[in-house]
């Protein structure tokens, strides 16, 4: 399976993402610069964390108009897995690929530590290798991860099982419903503030993030193996 790791000016988790895919997962990965106009060669799209365009105006606001974003929309429409982590999540909400928005953390602090997440929905192409309600340890590092949306959107997120990850009792940012990650209605675009790509090896403090990437690959293999 071939992943595109998008690189915007100011991305800084692209190397971690590349390493997770290439070295820990053993799949193909390629860095893709933000002005690329074709992503058709890739099976999955990864939007890494960082501070694209210096977080000017709002996090993710400027990146949403990069050339590559119309290609990301095409990939999402085609049902390919699109995963946005941290700043990648912010970009996906700004681009309208996911509902809601991310505000400044409630305590105004940049939070950098390991967070405990609950897998609320393991019936997705990103979480099938977790157990339902499994508690996993994934690092966070963000100043604007306070997910918000209107009551109507929240109700539909709940009704459609689109809340994929929540924080346990130590919500670091004040997000509504303790939301840490959500998926689109179709189930192929996931955005989350925590960094699974930083939890892929015991040497760096844990491997709880690996199952997320393995889930994507498993789903892809199962749907493509008949063409092999």
């Amino acid at each position, binding site marked *: 399976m071939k992943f595109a790791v998008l690189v915007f000016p100011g991305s800084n988790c692209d190397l971690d993402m590349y390493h997770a895919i290439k070295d820990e997962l053993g799949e193909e990965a390629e860095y893709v610069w933000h002005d690329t106009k074709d992503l058709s060669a890739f099976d999955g799209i990864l939007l890494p964390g960082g501070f694209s365009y210096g977080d000017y105006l709002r996090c993710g606001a400027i990146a949403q108009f990069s050339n590559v974003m119309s290609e990301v929309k095409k990939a999402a429409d085609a049902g390919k897995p699109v995963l946005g982590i941290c700043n990648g999540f912010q970009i996906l909400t700004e681009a309208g690929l996911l*509902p809601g928005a991310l505000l400044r953390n409630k*305590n*105004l602090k940049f939070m950098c530590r390991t967070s405990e997440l609950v897998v609320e929905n393991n019936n997705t192409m990103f979480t099938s290798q977790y157990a339902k309600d499994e508690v996993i340890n994934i690092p966070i590092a963000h100043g604007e991860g306070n997910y918000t949306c209107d009551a109507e959107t929240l109700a539909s997120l709940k009704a459609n099982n689109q809340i994929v990850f929540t924080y346990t009792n130590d919500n670091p940012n004040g997000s509504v419903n303790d939301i840490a990650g959500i998926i689109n209605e179709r189930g192929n675009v996931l955005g989350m503030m925590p960094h699974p790509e930083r939890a892929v090896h015991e040497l760096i403090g844990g491997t709880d993030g690996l199952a997320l990437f393995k889930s994507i690959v498993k789903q892809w293999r199962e749907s493509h193996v008949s063409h092999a």
Partner: protein
Amino acid sequence: MKKVKIYVTLRESVLDPQGSAVMGALHTMGYNQVEDVRIGKYLELQVDDSDRPLDEIVKEMCEKLLTNTVIEDYRYDVEEAVRK
């Protein structure tokens, strides 16, 4: 050419932790008269409106890029710009 002054504020329904922190500081300083603080952004644009109606251009820019209507409101004033 017009000068457009755009004021971006968080929607009423959205909590403003920065504003709350600043209000706390003002209260500590003794300004107990302050009952609420909301922090926003101010943008100043020079816009050539010779080929399209100004309101149309400004609203479009605000809704596409300059604000996130999920969490923010905006209003703007227009002045004649002095060409530099």
